[in-house]
């Protein structure tokens, strides 16, 4: 930390989220505040931000937890190279995430959605020297990115159905879109986006894979931000899609199955970080299920669970990061007696694990009570599966606390070193642990008034939610909580015997990463195959391909016209002068010379003749600027060819192709010639629309202040096109130089001429 600029940068990165957090708090006026800038009004894309109950919950979690994560990362990333870049990525990710939850325009939301995908790629792949990091970062990006594309299609459908891209305007239309024929497709596509982002089965596998990232990233992205983006989208769309049966069925089944499946997976892990990763999948599944149910209790439970999970999961991830730092391992079997060196982290771990396990009076307990309340309204199947998933969470909480921290340190366990002299490593988790208890005990009314009521009003416009209470007497949910706890303890006790059984049982099942790898390989194979076919590197073949495609399109169009008599072939009154005939005759002769030439020099000279004759044609038909350009381009061609021939006398004979190949070339050439002539015949005979040229002729002087219409078009009316073309010219020049670099041109030329022979 000697470098003052680095110090300043770290301070900035840390204070920015805090500033945003305070700004959000200051500018939030329930029920909502709007910020609006016009961006591309013609496409109904506006930079409009909306701060309402739902987005304030997410935005304050993102900036608040973001502040703690940045603090933690300052300490955690100290030994890493490129830590300044790490904080940059983290900050960019946070801004993208904030944009996502604040956007009030569907397409703006999509832009930020993809930005989170991109920035998370940089974060997950931060240890890019390791192959596994690169691979898993790519996997996360491909899975969430392809889901994002599906979602874009869905969002556009939704926008077109509603006639507006403003989210708040769409939500006020409520469920009136159900009748539209695009309703179901758009629902499915948007779900695909949300499910991939929020790691629902069968897309769940990228999230544990993303654990290759440094721990601060996991603590931030995979607890409270990125994976919650899908949850946010679903919560936003609840008023629109919530009434449909498909929504209920899909979300409940996908959510419940993900929760149960990933809970079992989490139970099988021995790496503490992977346990946490899979248990994040569990929570995401439960949230999806709750939003699918969409009742008053379910929405309350979801709003509690989002915050509760963010607090305890980020805290636990940081504790695991500290364990990693102190011992160099995260393997369950190698850890023991950590309490001695990680005293404060242990307290944080104890409280957050209690919240994770759902012990009263933690935030996790509260959200679990409401989860059961919501589940019980829909029968035993949902609540039963949630009970099992939660019991496994209890077992996981015990696993993380008891053996690593409480058991006595023994010889086989990993050696430990003290790290807690660096306060930044334990302040953030302890703050999160405190929040996990303080909010439900002391600040529940405040949370209700500021978050639950306004957010529920957005998600369920017609329903009034009940006041959340920590203690509601003895009732069925409380009984289920007790059951969960008992079952969890049982699962903890049988863990050493049950785990090998489970591993044996599940070893035959196809794994998510395996299937993903198969699909990826197939795509790469397909790409290679088509590249081999189309990109063979032979110039003659390229031009042949190009002309065949051109012929196919032109031919079919002309075929229709001639055969079906769509337009009768017009007759043209030929208005020929003697110079027209002379020019045409010379053009034909020159073309024949090109074809029959035996030496390259003759062929080039004849080709040049054609070019100059074309210039003459332009001159005759009074297009001086075009003629001039053509003339100059031809001259340059001659210069280039002169240079090549001067140095490469070896290529000065035209290779002779086989007869069959010449026949193919002849057919294509004649076909192109005939169809172009036919097309020109038809085009020139139809009366031209003079409107555009007249517009230019009239406004050239008044609007463009120039009498040369061609030039005024180039530099004024259509200057944007010209700018693009100039960029293309420069890029082509750079590319040509790059291809020639390394003195390979001689080899290239001799190779290509040999192959053509």
């Amino acid at each position, binding site marked *: 930390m000697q470098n003052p600029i680095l110090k300043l940068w770290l301070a900035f990165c840390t204070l920015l989220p805090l500033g945003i957090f305070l700004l959000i708090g200051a500018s939030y006026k329930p029920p909502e505040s709007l910020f609006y800038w016009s961006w591309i009004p013609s496409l109904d894309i506006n930079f409009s931000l909306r701060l309402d109950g739902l987005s304030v919950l997410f935005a304050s979690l993102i900036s608040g937890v973001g502040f703690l994560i940045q603090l933690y990362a300052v300490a955690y990333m100290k030994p890493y190279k490129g830590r300044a870049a790490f904080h940059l990525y983290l900050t960019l990710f946070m801004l993208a995430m904030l944009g996502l939850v604040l956007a009030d325009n569907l397409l703006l939301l999509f832009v930020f959605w993809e930005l989170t995908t991109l920035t998370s790629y940089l974060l997950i792949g931060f240890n890019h020297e390791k192959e596994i990091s690169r691979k898993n970062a790519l996997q996360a990006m491909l899975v969430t990115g392809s889901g994002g594309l599906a979602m874009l299609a869905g969002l556009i459908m939704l926008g077109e159905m509603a006639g507006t891209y403003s989210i708040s305007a769409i939500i006020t239309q409520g469920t009136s879109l159900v009748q539209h024929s695009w309703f179901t497709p758009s629902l499915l596509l948007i779900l695909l986006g949300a499910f991939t982002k929020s790691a629902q089965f069968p897309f769940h596998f990228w999230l544990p894979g993303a654990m290759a990232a440094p721990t601060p990233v996991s603590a931030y992205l995979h607890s409270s931000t990125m994976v919650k983006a899908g949850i946010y989208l679903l919560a936003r769309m609840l008023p629109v899609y919530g009434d449909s049966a498909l929504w209920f069925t899909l979300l409940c089944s996908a959510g419940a199955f993900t929760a149960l499946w990933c809970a079992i997976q989490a139970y099988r892990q021995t790496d503490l970080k992977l346990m946490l990763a899979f248990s994040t999948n569990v929570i995401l599944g439960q949230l999806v299920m709750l939003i699918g149910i969409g009742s008053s209790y379910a929405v309350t439970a979801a709003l509690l669970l989002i915050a509760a999970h963010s607090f305890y999961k980020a805290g636990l991830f940081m504790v695991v990061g500290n364990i990693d730092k102190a011992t160099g391992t995260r393997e369950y079997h190698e850890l023991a007696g950590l309490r001695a060196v990680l005293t404060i982290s242990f307290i944080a771990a104890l409280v957050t694990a209690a919240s994770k396990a759902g012990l009263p009076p933690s935030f996790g307990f509260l959200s679990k009570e409401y989860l059961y309340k919501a589940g019980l309204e829909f029968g035993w199947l949902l609540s039963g599966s949630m009970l099992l998933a939660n019991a496994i969470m209890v077992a996981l909480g015990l696993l993380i606390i008891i053996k690593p921290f409480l058991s006595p340190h023994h010889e086989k366990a990993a050696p430990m070193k003290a790290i807690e002299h660096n306060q930044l490593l334990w302040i953030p988790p302890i703050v999160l642990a405190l929040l996990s208890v303080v909010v439900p005990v002391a600040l529940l009314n405040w949370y209700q008034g500021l978050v639950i009521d306004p957010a529920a009003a957005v998600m369920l416009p017609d329903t009034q939610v009940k006041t959340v209470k920590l203690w509601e007497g003895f009732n069925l949910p409380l009984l289920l909580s007790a059951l969960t706890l008992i079952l969890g303890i049982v699962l903890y006790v049988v863990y050493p015997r049950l785990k090998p059984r489970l591993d044996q049982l599940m070893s035959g099942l196809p794994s998510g990463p395996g299937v993903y790898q198969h699909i990826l390989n197939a795509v790469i194979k397909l790409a290679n195959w088509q590249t081999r076919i189309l990109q063979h590197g032979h110039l003659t073949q390229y031009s042949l391909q190009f002309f065949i495609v051109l012929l196919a399109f032109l031919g079919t169009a002309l075929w229709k016209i001639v055969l079906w008599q769509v337009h009768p072939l017009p007759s043209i009154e030929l208005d020929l002068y003697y110079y027209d005939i002379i020019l045409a005759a010379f053009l034909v002769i020159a073309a024949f010379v090109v074809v029959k030439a035996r030496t390259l020099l003759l062929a080039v000279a004849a080709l040049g003749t054609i070019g100059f004759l074309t210039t003459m044609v332009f001159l005759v038909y009074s297009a001086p600027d075009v003629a001039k350009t053509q003339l100059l381009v031809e001259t340059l061609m001659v210069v280039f060819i002169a240079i090549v021939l001067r140095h490469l006398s070896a290529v000065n004979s035209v290779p002779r192709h086989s007869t069959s190949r010449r026949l193919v070339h002849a057919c294509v050439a004649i076909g192109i010639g005939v169809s172009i002539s036919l097309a020109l015949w038809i085009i020139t005979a139809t009366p031209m629309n003079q409107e555009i040229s007249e517009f230019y002729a009239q406004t050239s002087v008044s609007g463009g*202040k*120039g009498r040369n219409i061609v030039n005024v078009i180039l530099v004024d009316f259509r200057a944007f096109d010209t700018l693009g073309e100039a960029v293309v010219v420069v890029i082509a020049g750079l590319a040509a130089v790059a291809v020639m670099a390394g003195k390979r041109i001689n080899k290239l030329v001799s190779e290509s001429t040999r192959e053509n022979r």
Partner: protein
Amino acid sequence: MSSIIFRTSAHIVTVLMLVFSVYLLLRGHNNPGGGFIAGLIAVIAFALLMLAETTDYVRQRLVYSPAAFAGSGILIALLAGLLPLFFGQPFLSGLWWGKIGSPLLFDIGIYLAVIGSVLMVLLNVEEELS
């Protein structure tokens, strides 16, 4: 190419062509000409010089690398496009002060971009082959 007549006249013709290309560039808005054509003429002028002398000679006379010409050309064209934004008009609208206007600046950018990129290829081909 070592003929003394060619070499001597090439220097004179190059200068004349460069002057002519600037003339074409400036008159382009009202008469046949313009940045693209003028740029091509300038390139041909340099090509002539290159054939009479060496690529190193041309590079020395250019002072800056062709890539720098190409890049600054694009930047100048962009600048001409951005200028109107400060006057509350859309990107690339023409601004005029008497006879001088932003389209001329734009055309100068195109002129430099064409010269830079074509010369870049031309000089490289010659260098790689010899």
